[in-house]
């Protein structure tokens, strides 16, 4: 679950972190009112789940409420990386003397959370890591022990910060680390942390991402933000096709037939499972195919689920044919998947022999599965044909 900036800031505010005054607005009139409330120059920021807002023109400065209204109206209509914002954040403009960067994330190598801190905030942190490594610290900490403030202090001190700034920054970084660990975040980032002309240090922009698997445990926080614990917000909002697939996958608990992502090609894919889907999607593209979707089937889904997924994919106007492919399966059954796709094709009004370009699922119960495919005249291959070769056949048979 990715949080918008205004949500992330609400989480910081609830934890007592210093922040500029700000209001989340969904209309230009609200933005004007917000700017009037702030009584001074403001910054208007697009609330969109995409990087590069500044460059795209999604962040603008206004001196008067009228100006704020005009800019908000513009930004609310501005697509960034194809996404419309859910609103704008109207925030008091700050006089910034110095910018810092702080993030907490997981390090899969150390298998621990890590604090990344830099006194060169506001710019691309990967670039700082490459060209100014001495301005960046990495500090791991234990997920087992309660978080100790000294770890945040170490992270800040390691880039050479001292004095009052060290103490103020330590409080912010420690607070961020606690939110990260207590709220099962996969990323908690404040970039930049600003030191103002008057010496105060506050969080200027913030980005958080909560682990999907842990959302249920944080229903309180999500509900307080007006979200549901079952929300699956990714880098972009789901399309209707994706929501429909999610809905049918949730309709019965047996196995998975979903995790669908929409693409704009003409070849519908019924592929699985996790690793198999990634491999097959690449293989189809390498063979010159244009997938209409990514999806995953696995864990032996019911015939009904596979049938509905097949029907859903075939209902897309851009889908010419479908390919049904998996790695050698152990617990998903070849015959059960075969029944599902054949049924889905026929119920959608198509001849499976024509609609299915290739069926390549070898493994458990394949004898029964292959008997079904024979009966309906569906082109299929067994385990002696690699996934790449099957993908090539799928693409080749598009024009048959």
């Amino acid at each position: 679950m990715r949080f918008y900036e205004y949500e992330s800031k609400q989480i910081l505010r609830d934890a007592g972190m210093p922040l500029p005054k700000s209001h989340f607005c969904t209309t230009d009139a609200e933005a004007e009112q917000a700017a009037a409330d702030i009584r001074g120059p403001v910054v208007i920021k697009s609330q969109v789940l995409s990087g590069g807002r500044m460059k795209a023109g999604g962040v603008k400065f206004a001196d008067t409420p009228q100006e704020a209204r005009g800019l908000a109206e513009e930004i609310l209509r501005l697509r960034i990386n194809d996404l419309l914002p859910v609103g704008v954040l109207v925030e008091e403009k700050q006089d910034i003397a110095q910018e810092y960067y702080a993030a907490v994330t997981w390090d899969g190598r150390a298998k621990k959370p890590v604090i990344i801190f830099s006194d060169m905030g506001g710019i691309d942190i990967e670039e700082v890591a490459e060209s100014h490594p001495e301005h960046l610290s990495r500090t791991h900490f234990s997920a087992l022990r309660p978080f100790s403030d000294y770890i945040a202090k170490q992270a800040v001190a390691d880039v050479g910060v001292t004095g009052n700034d060290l103490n103020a920054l330590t409080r912010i970084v420690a607070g961020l680390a606690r939110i990260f660990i207590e709220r099962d975040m996969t990323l908690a980032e404040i970039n930049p942390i600003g030191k103002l002309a008057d010496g105060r240090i506050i969080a200027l922009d913030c980005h958080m991402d909560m682990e999907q698997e842990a959302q249920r445990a944080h229903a309180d926080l999500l509900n307080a933000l007006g979200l549901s614990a079952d929300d699956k917000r990714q880098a972009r909002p789901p399309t209707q096709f994706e929501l429909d697939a999610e809905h049918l996958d949730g309709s019965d608990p047996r196995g998975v037939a979903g995790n669908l992502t929409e693409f704009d090609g003409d070849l519908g894919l019924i592929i699985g499972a996790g690793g198999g889907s990634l491999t097959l999607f690449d293989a189809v593209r390498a063979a010159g195919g244009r997938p209409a979707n990514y999806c995953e089937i696995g864990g032996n889904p019911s015939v009904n689920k596979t049938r509905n997924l097949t029907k859903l994919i075939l209902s897309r106007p851009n889908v010419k044919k479908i390919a049904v492919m998996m790695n050698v399966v152990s617990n998903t059954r070849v015959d059960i998947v075969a029944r599902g796709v054949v049924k889905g094709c026929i119920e959608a009004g198509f001849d499976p022999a024509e609609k299915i370009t290739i069926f390549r699922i070898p493994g458990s119960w394949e004898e029964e599965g292959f008997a079904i495919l024979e009966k309906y005249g569906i082109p299929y291959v067994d385990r002696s044909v690699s996934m790449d070769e099957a993908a090539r056949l799928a693409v080749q048979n598009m024009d048959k």
Partner: protein
Amino acid sequence: MSILVNADTTFIIQGITGREAVTMARECLDYGARLLGGVTPGRKGREVHGLPVMDTVRQFTDTQRVDASVVSVPPAFAADAVFEAIDAGIPLIVVVTERIPRKQVAQFVEYAQQQGTRIIGPNCLGIISPGKTRVGGVGGAANSTERAFKPGRIGVMSRSGGMTVEIANSLSEAGLGVSTAVSIGGDAVIGSTYAELMPLFDADPDTDAIAIYSEPGGRAEYELAEYMQRSGSTKPIVAFMAGKFMDEMPGMRFGHAGTIVEGKADTATEKIANLAAAGITVADKVGDIPSLIKQRLGA
């Protein structure tokens, strides 16, 4: 020889009365594995396929040698089950459970490191040494497992359970076969990474080369590349990287929990370059793995 497990490995299944675990137990027994029984709290005295069910792990370890435990309990109880197994002194724990929040994974992994316990997984299918034993469900029913996993001299490590079977099958079809295959798990934090298992394969006289399946997300391939350069390991590795299409879609999660491109280093393209620079052969197509291994072995 083999790594991690051998024909004598005794093990239990925590959560043995669960739907998936009952099937797994059957498949392990049919394969000839030395499964002792399992644990489900409150079910002591019951049997699964004639094997005893106990309330606690200690009820097994107090009276007999238990070399490993397979944890197959719902995600909310998984961390507790792993802590129980670690405290009972079981040296190898295979965590099959999916969807455990990574904070909890990091907690039991850190504790396991302190106690000298080896963790495989979570979100994995287990370990198999063809013809000897299988600890976990990898391969499915015994007869299909025998077909996909012929005994041989190639090690397999894979972030995907399904692709462990696919690659083993292609090695078997090509007449190479498998020494030990480890489904290491698809999560962002896992108990044993490629680099941590490589020394075991390096030390195994019955493994001549290693096939690896990998995905975008995380830094495990960099760690492996570093290990290869540092250790002077001479066993050929052929790796395959899936999910190249994900490079164009940062921030989107596909497949496993660990499979998400957050930065430049997470992309398939970067990882492939890194592995290749460390002398690891990177297969462009998954089906090329057996022939590339044969090439590397000069066979």
